[in-house]
């Protein structure tokens, strides 16, 4: 008789155990989709890129990152539509807020990259042309656009995947830039 009773209680018991796990899973600190970046708080990877062909710019290498304080490193390409969407934000950020932004032009044709910068404005203090995508591999970039914050010591402090949305600029990126500048 007791075993029969227990059988009827079994579904409830299973549910209670599962419920305990659900409760644990709701912890607001827990983010199941977060991909921990191995690069956070580590020095930026070694790379040295020449400028976009046909421009006067100085090119970009690891040493340039730490030379002038906190820097935003932005991977972009002229063929990438989301880059076009985030570009005005970057222009504003460099002109109005005086943030130092450097660009890495990912797998792009020089003439198209030049045309794009002429058309949309050039927010970048320096640009390196990553024709073969080697630098992107060093940085662990999954796609363009992608943006990193590098502090004055040349360490990566933050990584943003995908285009920067105005909300994210305000809530995620600017507070970090300010904190690092102080």
């Amino acid at each position: 008789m007791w075993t029969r009773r227990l059988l009827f209680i079994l579904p409830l018991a299973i549910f209670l155990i599962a419920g305990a796990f659900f409760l644990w899973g709701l912890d607001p600190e827990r983010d199941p989709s977060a991909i921990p970046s191995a690069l956070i708080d580590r020095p930026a990877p070694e790379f040295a890129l020449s400028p976009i062909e046909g421009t006067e710019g100085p090119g970009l290498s690891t040493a340039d990152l730490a030379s002038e304080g906190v820097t935003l490193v932005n991977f972009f390409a002229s063929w990438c539509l989301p880059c076009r969407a985030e570009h005005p934000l970057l222009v504003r950020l460099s002109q109005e807020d005086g943030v130092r932004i450097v660009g890495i032009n990912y797998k792009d044709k020089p003439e198209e990259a030049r045309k794009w910068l002429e058309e949309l404005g050039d927010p970048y203090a320096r640009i390196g042309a990553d024709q073969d995508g080697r630098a992107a591999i060093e940085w662990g970039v999954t796609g363009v656009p992608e943006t990193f914050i590098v502090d004055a010591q040349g360490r990566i402090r933050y990584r943003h995947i995908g285009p920067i949305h105005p909300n994210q600029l305000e809530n995620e990126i600017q507070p970090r830039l300010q904190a690092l500048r102080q």
Partner: protein
Amino acid sequence: MIPEIGHFALLLALVVACVQGSLPMLGAAWNRPSWMAVGQPAALAQMFCVLVSFLALTQAYVVSDFTVLNVVENSHSAKPMLYKVTGVWGNHEGSLLLWVLILTVFGAAVAAFGANLPPTLKARVLSVQAWISIGFLSFCIFTSNPFERVFPPPPDGSDLNPLLQDPGLAFHPPMLYLGYVGFSIAFSFAVAALIEGRVDAAWARWVRPWTLAAWSFLTAGIALGSWWAYYELGWGGWWFWDPVENVSFMPWLLGTALLHSAVVVEKRDALKVWTILLAILTFSLSLLGTFIVRSGLLTSVHAFAVDPERGLYVLALLAIAIGGSLTLFAWRAPALKAGGLFAPISREGGLVLNNLLLATATATVLIGTLYPLFLEALSGERVSVGPPFFNLTFGPLMVPLVALMAVGPLLSWKRADLAGVLGRLKFAFLGSVIVTGAVWAFSYGGPVLAPLAMGLGAWLLLGTLSEWADRVKLFRAPLSESLSRARGLPRAAYGMSLAHAGLAICIFGIVGSTAWKVEEVLVMRPGDSVTVAGYDYRFEGVQGQEGPNYQANRARFMVTRDGQAVAVLEPEKRFYPVTDMPTTEAAIHTTGFADLYAVIGDPAPVSAEDGAKGRGWTVRIYYEPLVSWIWFGSLVMMLGGFLSLSDRRLRVGAPRRRVKAPALAQPAE
């Protein structure tokens, strides 16, 4: 003004639900007919209030009223009208309102069509239904109010997730909810029966049509979702064992079991406790689905409304609804009287086996879905359980189930003659052997199991046909007699045959598209050609396009076969600037036996060859044999469900048909 009316109607619905949840239940306990009678008008009033509320929100979307926060966050004035309307349920708050609306529509339907239910049972069912309403209405009002205003109103909205701006997905949620929420009726009936302490054949007869309706809608909802994944995600796949797909699939599996076990209760008064448990669990899994989608508990493509606080609220609801009903089950179910006995080889025995297999399959999917959470809680390790697990565990469970499906309908109640039944399936067996051999010969060198799986599908299809032929005595009696028998068969019998045949068609599609899919990923430049599975694709280039609320790159492929033009495929890659999201629009041409499927990706990295021909593009081309049969089969299954639902026997209040002189075979479902 109108949003306030909507908000007020929602509050009013909550008040009505509280009345409906208490008075009829108490009236049934204390035997006060006037209290019990409150249930019916209350259920109708509740539905009316929620309908007003839903229409108010819809109005805000249609006129793009950007003083309503929900509209701002999920709509845009440039969005096509269809997606303005479907945007109502393309977000957490609005979809919750739709959920509640459907819940109250089902409640009102029980009130309106349940004239011949015993008054106490009806009162209790409506009260239990109202308890569910109270839970979800309060959830909606207190944590997810869709009518919240915003001041000052922004000039324009932030647009709906572009992946949802699609006709397939526009109607996927309503269908899915009709299924999910439809199972609430079976749940309410089960809880009411436990409170009442009585389950009999009549109870099963009342529960079955609701379960059948919910099952048919859920079939359609899942099929629409998978169809959308197929053409919108651009990977040529139609099922990814994603947690959110799984949580819609589990109620379907268990609902299928419920559908079959309720037959046993109705015909033979057996399996009562099990059926009650199934009714509770099926709806519990629907609630679990709602919880997982809205809490961000697991990662999924449907990450919407990821808000732990809301998650906590749904978890509390879950604890009350599932915990409460299972406690009631543990307390009251042992007292239910066991019913008719039967031999292992019998219709009942077959249905028990069906239930065991379906329940095991559900458990497998449940474990696979929740395992990452369990493991992370216990060890902190992050894993994801993917298709290999499900294919290895779920697949083998389906083989005996499908093999049995052809045999089951031929078994007689109580005790069956297995040898005789198998004898009647000899043509089906022969046919499936021929199909296996033919497929093996045609696809020589392909996957070894595929011909066997196709043979299994053929076994089910031919077995279902033989059962029908057997009933109408096709070729064994004069054609005129067969015809009159065919006319005399109850619609429920045709419904069963259609649903089983639909599954067989599905199986052909699943096997065909899994085993013989051809996939080609390459970089093409304008003028390049590639041959995939006998079709030649000539890439004509990419052009920029401007849509109403997006920019797009549209590619053009001329498809020919042996020099004959077959189709022009124009896949697109779209970018929606307001939400910053790209989408892939695959181009699909179906021949009925296979789909030609093309997707355009990103431009390829620069290379030396670009100068001569122009920029290269990453292109994916798929050849998907029989894939459209999956959705055609689902459609047939759904039609089977509705046909069975239209059977006179299930039509509540319909006059009983006079029994004809030669009694027909026992209708099976």
